[in-house]
C-alpha cells in the first residue's frame, strides 16, 4: 500500500507545484483564471502532452528519444503532402502515423540490434529525419487544408477544443497499456533491470523496439494536431520539442534511470510547462527574464518533489 502511496505522493508534489503556480498567476493577473484562458492553455499543452506520453514509455524503459521533434516534422509533411495530393483524410492520417511509427521503429532497431545508446541513436535520427523532412519539401512549408481536416484542431464540443479530447484519449489509452498490459509491464521491468528481464524470458529486443515505435507514433499524433492547428506543415517544425517533452516527463516524476513513473505525472508536468508559458505571456514578462523564470520553474517543480520525498524518509 505505502509504496503505491509514495508513487502518487510524488505525483501529489507535482500537482501541488501546478496548483501553486496557478494560484500565483491568479493573484498576479485577472486574465489567467478565465474559462477561455484555461481552455486555451489545455489546447496549447496538447501537443507537448501527446509527445510526452510517448516519451514516458521511452524514459520508463530507461531510454531517451531526442528525435521526437524531427519526427513531428516528418510525419507532418507526409500528412500535408498526402492531403495536398488529394487523398482522403483517413489515408493521410494513416500515412502519417505509419511514417511516425516506422521512424520510431528504426530508432528502436538501431538501439536493439545496433546496440547503440538511445541517446546516440535518436540524436542521429533527429538529424536524419530533419534532413528528410527538409529534402522532401525542399525546405518549404506545405500549407492550406480543408476545413474538414482542420476541424481536428478547430472543432469544439461543449466549448472544449478537439485537441483536448485527443489528448485525453491518448492518455487513457497509453495509461491502460502501461498499467494493465503485458507490454506495459515489460516497459517497466526493462527499465528497472534489463538483464533480469531478458533472463525472465522476455524478448527485450522486440519490446524495446516497440517502445520507440510508440514514441514515434505519439510524435505523429502530435504532428496531426500541429498541422491542423497551424493549417500548415513545416519541415522545421518541432525543433527542441524533445526538451519540452523530456522536461514534462521528468517533472511528472518519471525517473531518467528508468523503471518508474507514469502518465499521471507526465500530464501534470506538461500542464506546468503550458501554464508557465501562458502566464509569462499574460504578464508580459520581458523575453530575457522569461528564460530565467522558465529555468527556475523547471528546477523548482522537481525540487518540491525531492524535498517532499526526502521529508518522508
Amino acid at each position, binding site marked *: 500500500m*505505502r509504496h503505491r502511496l509514495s508513487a502518487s505522493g510524488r505525483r501529489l508534489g507535482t500537482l501541488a507545484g501546478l496548483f501553486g503556480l496557478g494560484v500565483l498567476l491568479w493573484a498576479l493577473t485577472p486574465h489567467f483564471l478565465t474559462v477561455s484562458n484555461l481552455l486555451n492553455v489545455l489546447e496549447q499543452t496538447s501537443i507537448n502532452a501527446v509527445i510526452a506520453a510517448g516519451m514516458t514509455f521511452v524514459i520508463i524503459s530507461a531510454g531517451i528519444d531526442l528525435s521526437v521533434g524531427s519526427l513531428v516534422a516528418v510525419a507532418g509533411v507526409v500528412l500535408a503532402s498526402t492531403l495536398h495530393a488529394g487523398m482522403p483524410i483517413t489515408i493521410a492520417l494513416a500515412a502519417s502515423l505509419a511514417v511516425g511509427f516506422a521512424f520510431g521503429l528504426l530508432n528502436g532497431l538501431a538501439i536493439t540490434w545496433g546496440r547503440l545508446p538511445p541517446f546516440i541513436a535518436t540524436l542521429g535520427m533527429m538529424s536524419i529525419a530533419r534532413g528528410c523532412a527538409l529534402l522532401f519539401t525542399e525546405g518549404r512549408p506545405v500549407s492550406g487544408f480543408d476545413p474538414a481536416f482542420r476541424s481536428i484542431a478547430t472543432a469544439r464540443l461543449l466549448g472544449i477544443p478537439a485537441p483536448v479530447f485527443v489528448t485525453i484519449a491518448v492518455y487513457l489509452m497509453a495509461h491502460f497499456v502501461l498499467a494493465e498490459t*503485458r507490454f506495459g509491464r515489460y516497459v517497466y521491468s526493462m527499465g528497472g*533491470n534489463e538483464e533480469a528481464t531478458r533472463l525472465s524470458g522476455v524478448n527485450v529486443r522486440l519490446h524495446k523496439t516497440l517502445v520507440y515505435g510508440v514514441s514515434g507514433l505519439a510524435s505523429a499524433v502530435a504532428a496531426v494536431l500541429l498541422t491542423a492547428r497551424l493549417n500548415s506543415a513545416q519541415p522545421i517544425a518541432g525543433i527542441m520539442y524533445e526538451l519540452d517533452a523530456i522536461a514534462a516527463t521528468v517533472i511528472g516524476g518519471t525517473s531518467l534511470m528508468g523503471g518508474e513513473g507514469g502518465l499521471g505525472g507526465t500530464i501534470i508536468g506538461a500542464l506546468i510547462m503550458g501554464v508557465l508559458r501562458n502566464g509569462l505571456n499574460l504578464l508580459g514578462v520581458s523575453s530575457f527574464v522569461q528564460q530565467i523564470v522558465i529555468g527556475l520553474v523547471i528546477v523548482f517543480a522537481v525540487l518540491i518533489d525531492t524535498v517532499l520525498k526526502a521529508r518522508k524518509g
Partner: protein
Amino acid sequence: MTDMSQPAPLLQMRGICKQFPGVRALDEVAFELQRGEVHVLLGENGAGKSTLMRVLSGACARDAGEILIDGRPVALHSPRDAQALGISTIYQEFNLVPHLSAAANIFLGREPLVGAGIINRGKLLADATSLLRGLGTTIDPGVRVKHLSVAEQQMVEVAKALSLDARILIMDEPTSALTESEIDELFSAIGRLTKRGVAVIYISHRMEELARVGHRATVMRDGRYIATRPLPCPIPTLVRLMANRDITQHFPTPTRRRGAPLLHVEGISHPPRLHDVSFTLHRGEILGVAGLLGAGRTELARAIAGADVPTAGRVVLEGRPLRVRAPSDAIRAGIGLVPEDRKRHGFVPGQSVAANLALPQLRRLARAGVVDRRRERALATRWIEELRIKTPDASARVLTLSGGNQQKVVLGKWLAAGSDVLIVDEPTRGIDVAAKMEIYQLLDRLAADGAGILMISSELPEILGMSDRVLVMHQGRVQAVLDAHEATQERVLQAALGLAS
C-alpha cells in the same frame, strides 16, 4: 567477564530503533562487542541484522538509540564517520564499482598518494596484490571487478575490509558465495586480526561455520534483541531462539522417484570457461553440481538456459533437439534458471514483489495482452506464504526487502513458473536455516511431480544432502559423476580439485 577492572566494552549499542515505512526493522536493539572477539549475529531473514549493521557503519540513520565506543557516545552519521572511528564493513549487497579494477576498489577512498591528490599507482597495485595473495586468491588486481565472478567479488570485498586498519570489522554474510577453501583463508585472516585485538561482527546463515569462527552469538528476531550465548552452543538451541519454534535440521527424506531421461546435454562448450560438458538429467531427479570457485558451473547453467549462447554442443529435451538462442527460447521449452547473481540477474529492484514473481509467467497471466491482476495477486500471495517471504505486502518493492527475502523472491519466481527443467544456481545463498529446509522440501516436491532439477551449490552439505547424483566440475569440464551413495565429502572435494575421477 565480571572483573571490575575491565574497561568498558569496545562497542555498545543501546535502544537502537529504525522504522521503515510499514516495517519496524529495529526495535530497542542492544548489542555489545569486546576487543578481540568474533561476535556472531544471528536471525532469520528480515530479522534486522543488516539494518543494525548499516546503522553502525553510518550507511543508514537511526531513529533512536545510542552508540558508545570505549564507553563514550559517538556521533555516527555517515560512512566517513564510521571509518574515522575504525569501523569497516563488508556489506551484504556488493558495494563495488564494476568498472574499476579490483585494486582500485580495495583502496577506494583511501588511495595512496604521491604529492597533492596524485595516486601512487605502483604502491596501490602492490598493496592490493599482497592483500589478495594473503587471502589465497589468484585474482589479478588489475582486472575490472565487473569481469570477476560473484565469489571473486566477495573476496575483493573481504580484502577491502581487511585493508582498513579497523578496530571493528563488520562482515555481513561474507561467505555466502565462497567455497570451502576461500572460507578457510577468510577464517585464518579473521584469526590473525582478532589476535591483534580487532573485534569482528559476523553474520551468516551457515550454522556449521559459527563454532569455527565465533566466540559469542547474539540472536535477533523481528527487529528485537533476543539473547546472547557463548559459542560453541548447540545449533538447535540457536535455531530455536531464531525461529521461536523447533526446526528439524535434516534434509527431507526424498519422496521423488527417478523417471525417464528429460534433458540431455551433449558436448556443450563456451570457451574459455566451459569445455565439452555432457550429462543427462532425468525426471524426478535432483542432479547436484559441485566444483570450486570458477569451475564453470555458472557458465554451464547459463549456456543451457540460453543466457549465453554456447559455441558448440547441443541440448536435447525429451528427445527433441533444442535451439536455444535466448532465454525466451529456453523458457518456452520449459527450462528455468534461478541465477547466481540475484541483484544483477534475478529481479527488478524497483518493481513490486508481485510483479517480480509474475514476470516470467506474464504470458500465462495475461489475456489478449492484458494482465489479469487478480490472478497475479493470487500467485503472489501463494508464493509469499509458501516461501514465507517477509514483506509488508505483495506490492512492496523488492529493493526494500532483506537480502534473504530478495533471494526468496527470485526463487519463487521460478518455482511459480512450473518449469520442467529447473536449474538453480546457489539457491539457498543468504537464506536462513528454517527457510532452507522449506526450500529443500519444495525442490523435492517439484521433482516428485516430475521435474528435473539441476542444483548448483557451493555448500557441500547441501549437495550431499539433496542430490541423487553429483556432477563435479573442474576447470570447465566434468571431472566426475557420483551416485548419491558413493558421494562423500572427500570424493567430491578430490574430484573438484581435479585429482580423481
